[in-house]
């Protein structure tokens, strides 16, 4: 019995090691490529364990490429816009879905879920013609508007799941104390679900941050590219040194990974709760 348990731990550790290598290798390879000199990369001389003295090259793109910083700036604008618009709409919608019974609630709930099915590649065609007629091509706020439609329903699921766990009596007490519905939402509900608000904000922010299809279709002006469009433009491009490209990829990835790691639990609970009930 004892032997089998030890074996269990052994097998488990071994499997875990394998999974860690599989999951971690491409990430490690981004770092590795970013600090290996470009001519070594193309000479087939990339080592599994690179020369760590070039570690500063992780940040080389900040020096070698002026446009990268501008693209990151655009990405921040788009991501922040998506977060603010998405969270504002999602908080109000989640409160209605969590606290009220009303005609059409089922249909609306399904509508929110249905956005998970919509292919952006289909939407991008009519949105393009819509934005073209409104003069919203090449505008960052146009990207915000398009991204919010996808980020907001997910945020709504997360927030609704959190709101469902707040006892009704607390809100009734607030009503007796003189709160209107909007005050209850602002003063009671939002502070209580702050951790989930943060999780939803992370989801919405990186929805805007990572998005590529709308960005590449609606924004043709290179000055207004987001980092995802900018980095994608390096694909098949040989003028920019590859280590700089990967330095950009690393800097682009880092914030997303850090924030997701911090928030993963709440994001998952919201996503599953939302979609199960959706």
């Amino acid at each position, binding site marked *: 019995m004892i032997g089998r348990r030890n074996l269990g731990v052994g097998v488990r550790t071994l499997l875990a090691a394998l999974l860690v290598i599989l999951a971690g290798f491409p*990430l490690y390879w981004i770092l590795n490529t970013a600090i290996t000199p470009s001519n070594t990369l193309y000479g*087939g001389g990339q080592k599994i364990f690179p020369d760590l003295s070039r570690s500063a090259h992780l940040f080389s793109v900040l020096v070698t490429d002026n446009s990268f910083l501008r693209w990151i700036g655009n990405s921040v604008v788009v991501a922040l816009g998506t977060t603010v618009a998405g969270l504002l709409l999602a908080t109000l919608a989640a409160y209605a879905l969590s606290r009220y019974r009303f005609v059409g609630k089922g249909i609306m709930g399904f509508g*929110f879920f249905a956005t998970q099915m919509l292919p952006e*590649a289909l939407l991008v065609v009519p949105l393009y013609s819509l934005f*073209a007629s409104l003069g919203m091509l090449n505008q960052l706020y146009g990207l915000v508007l398009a991204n919010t439609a996808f980020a907001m329903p997910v945020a709504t699921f997360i927030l609704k799941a959190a709101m469902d766990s707040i006892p009704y009596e607390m809100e009734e007490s607030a009503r007796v104390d003189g709160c209107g519905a909007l005050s209850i939402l602002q003063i009671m509900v939002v502070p209580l679900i702050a951790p989930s608000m943060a999780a939803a904000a992370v989801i919405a922010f990186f929805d805007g941050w990572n998005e590529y299809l709308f960005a590449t279709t609606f924004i043709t002006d290179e000055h207004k590219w987001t980092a995802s469009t900018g980095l994608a433009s390096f694909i098949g491009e040989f003028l920019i040194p590859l280590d700089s490209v990967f330095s950009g990829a690393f800097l682009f*990835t880092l914030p997303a990974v850090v924030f997701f790691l911090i928030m993963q639990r709440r994001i998952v609970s919201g996503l599953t709760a939302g979609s199960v009930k959706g």
Partner: protein
Amino acid sequence: MSVPQTVPTSRKPRTPLAPYLFIGAAVIYLAVFAGVPILKGFQLSLTDTQLINPNGGSPVGLDNYAALVGSEVFLRSVVTTIVYAFCTVAGSLLIGTVSAVVLNRAFPGRLLARAVIVMPWAVPTVAVVLVFRWIFNNDNGVANAAFSALGIGAQGWLTDPRYGMLSILIATVWKVSPFVMLVVLAALQAVPDELYEAARVDGADMYSTFKSVVLPHLMPTLRIVGLLMTIWSFRRFEIIWLLTGGGPADVTNTIVINVYQQAFGNSQLGFGAAIGVLGLLLSLAVTLVYFVLETRTERKNRVAV
């Protein structure tokens, strides 16, 4: 301290209007930025609209659809989509579940392992594409370096039609498995310890404990994750588009890639929209089948209990 003496004309304290005010903004927003485009897409699909003049184009009835039904390219893209979705779902469910089971029990370094295994989910698609293109690079990629060292020889991962699909599957499964892992892990942690203990008292070995105790507990979660993975696979665009662009030789030309190709590559907005509408119908059908099966299982379980 006295109560107000005037009675307001019968105003209900909680108007039924309130929920609509709260949800209204979001619903209108979705209607404008998802509902209208869908309808517009449907309308476009009935026209011969060109990219150069997105608001022009004349109605052509069901011509686009008629052309699609007979088009071998389209039919192949449907098959490609289904193959891609099936393999992605199966692969990510398998790897995700195995990861979750491994991470569910204590072993040295579990926290670190968990953090690393979760990471791919957070990596922006463009960065995923950059690194996988480099790994799969024909001349200098680490994949071919390893295969050469093993004596198998270099392969054209992204250029050889035999390996195109495999390559995008590897990249996709790598990116989405952590999501499955997180959700399944959450479900595993909800399995009461007594169940494991009871199984151990009954003398069940590890495999039969998993099969008879853990798996039934996981099934509802696996089903919903499976649905999400399926509909997400149908609409997944960026990773395929940027890795292979639908090639080599159209082996990764899924429906959504086809839509984009037609609309923005061949400038045929109307024709592209028609493909997209059919793709959306496929997603809807899958979701419908899922909900029908789900209610049936639920009913069966209720009878069993």
